[in-house]
Protein backbone atom coordinates (compact mmCIF):
# COMPACT_ATOMS: atom_id res chain seq x y z
CA UNK A 1 0.00 0.00 0.00
CA UNK A 2 2.80 2.38 0.90
CA UNK A 3 4.43 1.63 -2.45
CA UNK A 4 1.23 2.49 -4.30
CA UNK A 5 0.91 5.79 -2.51
CA UNK A 6 4.50 6.62 -3.28
CA UNK A 7 4.01 5.72 -6.95
CA UNK A 8 0.86 7.85 -7.13
CA UNK A 9 2.63 10.76 -5.47
CA UNK A 10 5.51 10.46 -7.90
CA UNK A 11 3.13 10.31 -10.85
CA UNK A 12 1.26 13.38 -9.59
CA UNK A 13 4.50 15.24 -9.17
CA UNK A 14 5.54 14.35 -12.68
CA UNK A 15 2.18 15.40 -14.10
CA UNK A 16 2.18 18.72 -12.32
CA UNK A 17 5.80 19.52 -13.02
CA UNK A 18 5.98 22.85 -14.76
CA UNK A 19 8.20 22.85 -17.80
CA UNK A 20 9.17 26.47 -17.50
CA UNK A 21 9.25 28.31 -14.23
CA UNK A 22 8.36 32.01 -14.54
CA UNK A 23 11.20 32.76 -12.17
CA UNK A 24 13.61 31.52 -14.83
CA UNK A 25 12.58 34.10 -17.41
CA UNK A 26 15.91 34.86 -19.07
CA UNK A 27 17.34 38.31 -18.59
CA UNK A 28 20.09 38.69 -21.15
CA UNK A 29 22.07 41.91 -21.40
CA UNK A 30 19.81 44.83 -22.39
CA UNK A 31 22.64 47.07 -23.60
CA UNK A 32 23.88 44.38 -25.95
CA UNK A 33 20.32 43.93 -27.17
CA UNK A 34 20.07 47.62 -27.96
CA UNK A 35 23.33 47.85 -29.82
CA UNK A 36 23.65 44.50 -31.58
CA UNK A 37 20.67 42.18 -31.30
CA UNK A 38 17.83 44.60 -31.94
CA UNK A 39 19.08 45.67 -35.42
CA UNK A 40 19.41 42.02 -36.40
CA UNK A 41 15.92 41.12 -35.23
CA UNK A 42 14.51 44.26 -36.84
CA UNK A 43 16.18 43.41 -40.15
CA UNK A 44 15.35 39.74 -40.39
CA UNK A 45 12.16 39.36 -38.34
CA UNK A 46 10.42 42.72 -38.06
CA UNK A 47 8.74 42.95 -41.47
CA UNK A 48 5.14 44.13 -41.18
CA UNK A 49 3.65 40.83 -42.33
CA UNK A 50 6.04 38.81 -40.15
CA UNK A 51 7.09 39.69 -36.61
CA UNK A 52 6.16 43.31 -37.15
CA UNK A 53 2.56 42.18 -36.87
CA UNK A 54 1.30 43.16 -33.43
CA UNK A 55 -0.95 40.12 -33.32
CA UNK A 56 2.11 37.89 -32.98
CA UNK A 57 3.64 36.68 -29.76
CA UNK A 58 7.11 37.80 -30.74
CA UNK A 59 7.10 41.32 -32.17
CA UNK A 60 9.86 43.76 -33.03
CA UNK A 61 8.90 47.40 -33.38
CA UNK A 62 11.05 50.00 -35.03
CA UNK A 63 11.80 52.50 -37.78
CA UNK A 64 10.89 51.55 -41.31
CA UNK A 65 8.76 48.75 -39.88
CA UNK A 66 5.82 48.73 -37.51
CA UNK A 67 5.86 51.54 -34.96
CA UNK A 68 4.27 51.52 -31.56
CA UNK A 69 1.08 53.53 -31.27
CA UNK A 70 1.66 57.08 -30.19
CA UNK A 71 -0.76 59.08 -28.12
CA UNK A 72 -0.76 62.64 -29.50
CA UNK A 73 -1.79 63.97 -26.12
CA UNK A 74 1.60 62.89 -24.80
CA UNK A 75 3.43 64.98 -27.38
CA UNK A 76 4.54 68.45 -26.44
CA UNK A 77 3.03 71.23 -28.46
CA UNK A 78 6.23 71.95 -30.32
CA UNK A 79 6.79 68.27 -31.16
CA UNK A 80 5.84 67.21 -34.64
CA UNK A 81 4.28 63.81 -35.18
CA UNK A 82 7.13 61.31 -35.42
CA UNK A 83 8.24 60.15 -38.83
CA UNK A 84 8.19 56.41 -39.62
CA UNK A 85 11.95 56.64 -39.98
CA UNK A 86 12.68 58.31 -36.68
CA UNK A 87 15.01 56.34 -34.36
CA UNK A 88 13.39 53.67 -32.21
CA UNK A 89 11.75 55.04 -29.10
CA UNK A 90 12.70 53.77 -25.67
CA UNK A 91 9.31 52.08 -25.41
CA UNK A 92 9.81 50.26 -28.71
CA UNK A 93 13.25 49.09 -27.69
CA UNK A 94 12.15 47.96 -24.24
CA UNK A 95 9.04 46.20 -25.46
CA UNK A 96 10.97 44.45 -28.25
CA UNK A 97 13.46 43.32 -25.62
CA UNK A 98 10.70 41.97 -23.40
CA UNK A 99 9.13 40.06 -26.29
CA UNK A 100 12.52 38.66 -27.26
CA UNK A 101 13.29 37.44 -23.75
CA UNK A 102 9.82 35.91 -23.51
CA UNK A 103 10.63 33.98 -26.67
CA UNK A 104 13.71 32.62 -24.92
CA UNK A 105 11.66 30.66 -22.40
CA UNK A 106 12.02 26.96 -23.04
CA UNK A 107 10.71 23.77 -21.55
CA UNK A 108 13.92 22.63 -19.99
CA UNK A 109 15.37 21.12 -23.16
CA UNK A 110 18.10 23.71 -23.28
CA UNK A 111 18.36 27.30 -24.41
CA UNK A 112 18.83 26.34 -28.05
CA UNK A 113 15.33 24.88 -28.03
CA UNK A 114 13.85 28.26 -27.11
CA UNK A 115 11.53 29.55 -29.85
CA UNK A 116 13.65 32.62 -30.59
CA UNK A 117 16.65 30.44 -31.40
CA UNK A 118 15.10 27.33 -32.85
CA UNK A 119 12.32 28.64 -35.05
CA UNK A 120 14.49 30.55 -37.53
CA UNK A 121 16.39 27.34 -38.30
CA UNK A 122 15.61 24.89 -41.06
CA UNK A 123 12.99 22.25 -40.41
CA UNK A 124 11.62 23.73 -37.19
CA UNK A 125 8.12 24.69 -38.21
CA UNK A 126 8.74 28.34 -38.90
CA UNK A 127 5.99 29.81 -41.05
CA UNK A 128 8.07 32.64 -42.41
CA UNK A 129 10.07 30.88 -45.06
CA UNK A 130 11.33 33.01 -47.88
CA UNK A 131 10.28 32.72 -51.51
CA UNK A 132 12.76 29.87 -52.00
CA UNK A 133 11.36 27.92 -49.05
CA UNK A 134 14.33 28.74 -46.85
CA UNK A 135 14.30 29.74 -43.22
CA UNK A 136 16.13 32.97 -42.41
CA UNK A 137 19.06 31.51 -40.48
CA UNK A 138 21.21 28.45 -40.00
CA UNK A 139 23.33 27.59 -36.97
CA UNK A 140 26.40 28.74 -38.89
CA UNK A 141 24.88 32.14 -39.60
CA UNK A 142 26.70 34.93 -37.77
CA UNK A 143 23.39 36.57 -36.90
CA UNK A 144 22.03 33.43 -35.28
CA UNK A 145 25.28 32.97 -33.34
CA UNK A 146 25.08 36.56 -32.12
CA UNK A 147 21.55 36.08 -30.82
CA UNK A 148 22.49 32.74 -29.25
CA UNK A 149 25.60 34.22 -27.62
CA UNK A 150 23.56 37.12 -26.28
CA UNK A 151 20.81 34.83 -24.97
CA UNK A 152 23.34 32.54 -23.32
CA UNK A 153 25.17 35.47 -21.75
CA UNK A 154 28.35 34.42 -23.49
CA UNK A 155 29.06 37.84 -24.96
CA UNK A 156 28.82 41.19 -23.30
CA UNK A 157 28.13 44.71 -24.48
CA UNK A 158 31.78 45.32 -25.34
CA UNK A 159 31.82 42.17 -27.48
CA UNK A 160 34.10 40.22 -25.17
CA UNK A 161 33.38 36.98 -23.35
CA UNK A 162 31.30 37.08 -20.19
CA UNK A 163 33.65 37.26 -17.16
Amino acid at each position, binding site marked *: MRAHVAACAAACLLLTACASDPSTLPAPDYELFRSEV*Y*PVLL*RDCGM*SNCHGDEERFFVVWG*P*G*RTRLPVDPSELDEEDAAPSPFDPPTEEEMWLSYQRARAALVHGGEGLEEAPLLVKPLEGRGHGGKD*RWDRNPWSREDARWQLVRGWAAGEITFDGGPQP
Partner: protein
Amino acid sequence: MVFVLAALAYSNPKLFDAPAHEGGGAGRYYTGSRGDGYGCDACHGGGAKDFALEVEGLPLGGWAAGATYTLDIAWSPTIEHASVLAEFTDGDGRAVGSLSLPPEDLLTPPELCGSGNRAAKQVELEDERVLLTIGDCGAHRLRAQWQAPDEASVGPINLHIAAVAGDGSGDASGDSVALENRELRPLGYAEQGCQIADTPERGRWGLLALGLLGLAGLRRRSTLAAVAVVAALSASACVNVQPYERGRLAQPDMELELDADLMAGPHHAVEYREGSAGALGGAGGGCGCN
Protein backbone atom coordinates in the same frame (compact mmCIF):
# COMPACT_ATOMS: atom_id res chain seq x y z
CA MET B 1 -6.83 59.44 -29.67
CA VAL B 2 -4.21 56.91 -30.70
CA PHE B 3 -2.78 56.55 -34.12
CA VAL B 4 -0.45 53.93 -35.51
CA LEU B 5 2.69 54.59 -37.45
CA ALA B 6 3.60 51.72 -39.68
CA ALA B 7 6.23 51.03 -42.30
CA LEU B 8 6.60 53.55 -45.08
CA ALA B 9 7.38 52.36 -48.57
CA TYR B 10 11.06 52.68 -49.34
CA SER B 11 10.62 55.65 -51.59
CA ASN B 12 14.36 56.24 -51.76
CA PRO B 13 16.49 53.31 -52.96
CA LYS B 14 19.25 54.34 -50.53
CA LEU B 15 17.04 53.20 -47.69
CA PHE B 16 17.42 49.58 -48.70
CA ASP B 17 21.06 49.72 -47.72
CA ALA B 18 20.68 51.88 -44.61
CA PRO B 19 20.96 50.20 -41.18
CA ALA B 20 17.80 48.57 -39.90
CA HIS B 21 17.62 50.69 -36.75
CA GLU B 22 17.58 53.75 -38.98
CA GLY B 23 14.63 52.38 -40.88
CA GLY B 24 16.62 50.78 -43.68
CA GLY B 25 16.67 47.33 -45.16
CA ALA B 26 20.24 46.71 -43.94
CA GLY B 27 21.17 45.24 -47.29
CA ARG B 28 17.86 43.60 -48.02
CA TYR B 29 16.26 44.84 -51.23
CA TYR B 30 13.26 42.48 -51.10
CA THR B 31 13.42 41.46 -54.74
CA GLY B 32 12.63 37.84 -53.92
CA SER B 33 15.83 36.62 -55.56
CA ARG B 34 17.94 33.84 -54.10
CA GLY B 35 20.32 36.48 -52.82
CA ASP B 36 17.51 38.16 -50.92
CA GLY B 37 14.87 35.59 -50.20
CA TYR B 38 12.03 37.86 -49.19
CA GLY B 39 9.91 39.95 -51.53
CA CYS B 40 8.33 43.33 -50.93
CA ASP B 41 5.19 41.46 -49.86
CA ALA B 42 6.93 40.77 -46.54
CA CYS B 43 5.69 44.20 -45.53
CA HIS B 44 3.44 45.63 -48.21
CA GLY B 45 0.05 44.33 -49.23
CA GLY B 46 -3.66 44.75 -48.99
CA GLY B 47 -4.01 46.94 -52.05
CA ALA B 48 -7.38 46.94 -53.71
CA LYS B 49 -6.00 46.85 -57.26
CA ASP B 50 -3.44 44.67 -58.97
CA PHE B 51 -0.21 46.39 -59.86
CA ALA B 52 0.22 45.44 -63.52
CA LEU B 53 3.66 45.76 -65.08
CA GLU B 54 4.30 45.60 -68.80
CA VAL B 55 7.61 43.87 -69.36
CA GLU B 56 9.05 43.81 -72.86
CA GLY B 57 12.32 43.08 -74.60
CA LEU B 58 13.06 39.83 -72.86
CA PRO B 59 14.60 36.96 -74.85
CA LEU B 60 11.73 34.62 -74.03
CA GLY B 61 12.72 32.28 -76.87
CA GLY B 62 16.20 31.93 -75.43
CA TRP B 63 19.14 34.26 -74.95
CA ALA B 64 22.24 34.11 -77.11
CA ALA B 65 25.63 34.28 -75.42
CA GLY B 66 27.04 37.81 -75.51
CA ALA B 67 23.91 39.30 -77.10
CA THR B 68 22.38 42.52 -75.77
CA TYR B 69 18.70 42.93 -74.95
CA THR B 70 16.70 45.98 -73.91
CA LEU B 71 14.61 45.41 -70.82
CA ASP B 72 11.60 47.69 -70.81
CA ILE B 73 9.29 47.80 -67.78
CA ALA B 74 6.36 50.19 -67.78
CA TRP B 75 3.38 50.78 -65.54
CA SER B 76 0.33 52.97 -65.70
CA PRO B 77 0.90 56.73 -65.33
CA THR B 78 -2.22 56.75 -63.16
CA ILE B 79 -0.20 55.12 -60.36
CA GLU B 80 1.10 58.04 -58.34
CA HIS B 81 3.46 56.25 -55.97
CA ALA B 82 5.49 53.38 -57.38
CA SER B 83 8.86 51.84 -56.55
CA VAL B 84 10.36 49.22 -58.85
CA LEU B 85 13.43 46.99 -58.50
CA ALA B 86 14.87 44.48 -60.94
CA GLU B 87 17.87 42.18 -61.07
CA PHE B 88 19.20 39.39 -63.27
CA THR B 89 20.65 36.52 -61.27
CA ASP B 90 22.06 33.07 -61.75
CA GLY B 91 20.90 30.07 -59.74
CA ASP B 92 22.89 31.22 -56.71
CA GLY B 93 21.50 34.75 -56.65
CA ARG B 94 24.57 36.46 -58.10
CA ALA B 95 24.39 39.01 -60.90
CA VAL B 96 24.80 37.52 -64.33
CA GLY B 97 25.58 39.38 -67.54
CA SER B 98 26.03 43.13 -67.45
CA LEU B 99 23.55 45.99 -67.14
CA SER B 100 23.65 49.53 -68.42
CA LEU B 101 21.19 52.39 -68.25
CA PRO B 102 20.28 54.48 -71.31
CA PRO B 103 22.31 57.63 -71.91
CA GLU B 104 20.69 60.87 -70.79
CA ASP B 105 19.87 62.04 -74.31
CA LEU B 106 17.87 58.90 -75.03
CA LEU B 107 15.69 59.05 -71.94
CA THR B 108 11.97 59.37 -72.56
CA PRO B 109 9.67 61.48 -70.35
CA PRO B 110 8.21 58.45 -68.49
CA GLU B 111 11.76 57.58 -67.36
CA LEU B 112 12.16 60.92 -65.58
CA CYS B 113 11.17 61.94 -62.09
CA GLY B 114 8.83 64.83 -61.53
CA SER B 115 11.96 66.93 -61.00
CA GLY B 116 13.18 66.08 -64.50
CA ASN B 117 16.06 63.91 -63.30
CA ARG B 118 16.72 60.37 -64.39
CA ALA B 119 14.66 58.03 -62.22
CA ALA B 120 16.54 54.74 -62.65
CA LYS B 121 19.67 53.95 -60.70
CA GLN B 122 22.02 51.04 -60.92
CA VAL B 123 23.20 49.72 -57.57
CA GLU B 124 26.12 47.32 -57.19
CA LEU B 125 26.08 45.39 -53.92
CA GLU B 126 28.95 43.73 -52.14
CA ASP B 127 27.52 40.24 -52.50
CA GLU B 128 27.85 40.23 -56.31
CA ARG B 129 24.40 41.59 -56.94
CA VAL B 130 23.53 44.41 -59.32
CA LEU B 131 20.10 46.01 -59.13
CA LEU B 132 18.08 48.47 -61.08
CA THR B 133 16.00 50.70 -58.85
CA ILE B 134 13.37 53.36 -59.29
CA GLY B 135 12.06 55.18 -56.25
CA ASP B 136 8.74 56.89 -55.81
CA CYS B 137 9.41 60.03 -57.88
CA GLY B 138 6.74 60.10 -60.56
CA ALA B 139 8.45 57.96 -63.20
CA HIS B 140 6.55 55.09 -64.80
CA ARG B 141 9.08 53.41 -67.04
CA LEU B 142 12.36 51.58 -66.44
CA ARG B 143 14.65 50.75 -69.35
CA ALA B 144 18.06 49.13 -69.29
CA GLN B 145 20.26 47.09 -71.56
CA TRP B 146 21.25 43.66 -70.41
CA GLN B 147 24.14 41.87 -72.06
CA ALA B 148 23.91 38.12 -71.72
CA PRO B 149 26.97 36.27 -70.40
CA ASP B 150 29.53 35.04 -72.91
CA GLU B 151 28.97 31.41 -72.02
CA ALA B 152 25.66 29.62 -72.47
CA SER B 153 26.83 27.09 -69.91
CA VAL B 154 25.61 29.52 -67.20
CA GLY B 155 22.25 27.90 -67.87
CA PRO B 156 18.87 29.44 -67.07
CA ILE B 157 18.94 32.83 -65.41
CA ASN B 158 16.23 34.66 -63.51
CA LEU B 159 14.91 38.16 -63.91
CA HIS B 160 13.39 39.27 -60.63
CA ILE B 161 11.10 42.28 -60.56
CA ALA B 162 9.67 43.64 -57.33
CA ALA B 163 7.33 46.60 -57.37
CA VAL B 164 5.10 48.41 -54.91
CA ALA B 165 2.29 50.77 -55.78
CA GLY B 166 1.70 52.74 -52.60
CA ASP B 167 -1.63 54.21 -51.70
CA GLY B 168 -0.01 57.36 -50.37
CA SER B 169 -1.01 56.61 -46.79
CA GLY B 170 2.59 56.33 -45.66
CA ASP B 171 2.24 52.82 -44.31
CA ALA B 172 2.68 49.35 -45.75
CA SER B 173 -0.99 48.43 -45.75
CA GLY B 174 -3.23 49.20 -48.69
CA ASP B 175 -0.31 48.90 -51.11
CA SER B 176 -0.35 46.77 -54.23
CA VAL B 177 2.60 44.51 -54.89
CA ALA B 178 3.95 42.99 -58.09
CA LEU B 179 6.54 40.25 -57.80
CA GLU B 180 7.80 38.49 -60.89
CA ASN B 181 10.41 35.85 -61.44
CA ARG B 182 10.98 35.11 -65.11
CA GLU B 183 13.28 32.29 -66.08
CA LEU B 184 15.30 32.99 -69.20
CA ARG B 185 17.06 30.08 -70.84
CA PRO B 186 19.97 30.07 -73.21
CA LEU B 187 19.20 29.27 -76.83
CA GLY B 188 18.89 25.54 -77.46
CA TYR B 189 18.68 24.77 -73.76
CA ALA B 190 17.50 21.19 -73.26
CA GLU B 191 15.33 20.65 -70.22
CA GLN B 192 16.42 17.10 -69.58
CA GLY B 193 18.09 14.34 -71.53
CA CYS B 194 19.49 10.96 -70.63
CA GLN B 195 22.98 9.63 -70.73
CA ILE B 196 24.71 6.73 -69.11
CA ALA B 197 25.79 8.54 -65.94
CA ASP B 198 25.94 11.96 -64.37
CA THR B 199 29.51 11.68 -63.06
CA PRO B 200 32.70 10.10 -64.48
CA GLU B 201 32.84 7.67 -61.56
CA ARG B 202 29.34 6.43 -62.15
CA GLY B 203 30.10 6.28 -65.85
CA ARG B 204 33.05 3.97 -65.23
CA TRP B 205 30.92 1.74 -63.02
CA GLY B 206 28.25 1.72 -65.69
CA LEU B 207 30.74 0.67 -68.34
CA LEU B 208 32.06 -2.07 -66.04
CA ALA B 209 28.49 -3.29 -65.53
CA LEU B 210 27.94 -3.34 -69.26
CA GLY B 211 31.14 -5.36 -69.64
CA LEU B 212 29.90 -7.83 -67.05
CA LEU B 213 26.61 -8.04 -68.88
CA GLY B 214 28.39 -8.91 -72.11
CA LEU B 215 30.53 -11.50 -70.31
CA ALA B 216 27.47 -13.04 -68.72
CA GLY B 217 25.80 -13.23 -72.11
CA LEU B 218 28.79 -15.04 -73.57
CA ARG B 219 29.03 -17.52 -70.68
CA ARG B 220 25.29 -17.78 -70.03
CA ARG B 221 25.65 -17.01 -66.32
CA SER B 222 22.26 -15.78 -65.13
CA THR B 223 23.49 -14.67 -61.67
CA LEU B 224 26.27 -12.62 -63.20
CA ALA B 225 23.80 -11.13 -65.65
CA ALA B 226 21.41 -10.18 -62.85
CA VAL B 227 24.21 -8.51 -60.89
CA ALA B 228 25.32 -6.66 -64.01
CA VAL B 229 21.80 -5.45 -64.76
CA VAL B 230 21.35 -4.16 -61.21
CA ALA B 231 24.74 -2.47 -61.32
CA ALA B 232 24.01 -0.90 -64.69
CA LEU B 233 20.66 0.40 -63.48
CA SER B 234 22.13 1.88 -60.33
CA ALA B 235 24.95 3.51 -62.26
CA SER B 236 22.70 5.22 -64.75
CA ALA B 237 21.16 8.61 -64.19
CA CYS B 238 19.43 11.34 -66.12
CA VAL B 239 21.18 14.64 -66.56
CA ASN B 240 20.84 17.64 -68.80
CA VAL B 241 22.61 17.15 -72.12
CA GLN B 242 23.53 20.48 -73.61
CA PRO B 243 23.57 20.97 -77.38
CA TYR B 244 27.33 21.47 -77.35
CA GLU B 245 27.74 18.13 -75.58
CA ARG B 246 25.99 16.16 -78.29
CA GLY B 247 29.03 16.04 -80.55
CA ARG B 248 30.67 13.70 -78.07
CA LEU B 249 27.59 11.49 -77.95
CA ALA B 250 27.60 11.25 -81.75
CA GLN B 251 31.08 9.75 -81.91
CA PRO B 252 31.34 6.07 -82.94
CA ASP B 253 32.83 5.00 -79.62
CA MET B 254 29.63 6.12 -77.90
CA GLU B 255 27.72 3.27 -79.58
CA LEU B 256 26.19 1.09 -76.90
CA GLU B 257 26.15 -1.99 -79.11
CA LEU B 258 29.16 -4.20 -78.46
CA ASP B 259 29.44 -5.72 -81.94
CA ALA B 260 27.84 -3.69 -84.69
CA ASP B 261 28.93 -6.16 -87.39
CA LEU B 262 27.23 -9.00 -85.57
CA MET B 263 23.96 -7.05 -85.30
CA ALA B 264 23.93 -5.90 -88.90
CA GLY B 265 22.14 -9.10 -90.02
CA PRO B 266 19.27 -8.89 -87.48
CA HIS B 267 18.89 -5.18 -88.17
CA HIS B 268 18.61 -5.88 -91.88
CA ALA B 269 15.96 -8.51 -91.18
CA VAL B 270 13.95 -6.04 -89.08
CA GLU B 271 14.18 -3.40 -91.79
CA TYR B 272 12.99 -5.87 -94.42
CA ARG B 273 10.10 -7.04 -92.25
CA GLU B 274 8.94 -3.60 -91.08
CA GLY B 275 9.48 -1.84 -94.37
CA SER B 276 11.38 0.94 -92.60
CA ALA B 277 14.92 1.68 -91.56
CA GLY B 278 16.58 3.44 -88.62
CA ALA B 279 15.56 4.03 -85.00
CA LEU B 280 17.84 1.25 -83.88
CA GLY B 281 19.87 3.20 -81.39
CA GLY B 282 22.18 5.06 -83.69
CA ALA B 283 23.80 8.14 -82.19
CA GLY B 284 23.41 11.52 -83.80
CA GLY B 285 22.57 15.16 -83.31
CA GLY B 286 26.14 16.41 -83.28
CA CYS B 287 25.10 19.65 -84.86
CA GLY B 288 23.02 20.51 -81.81
CA CYS B 289 19.67 20.05 -83.49
CA ASN B 290 17.19 17.28 -82.87
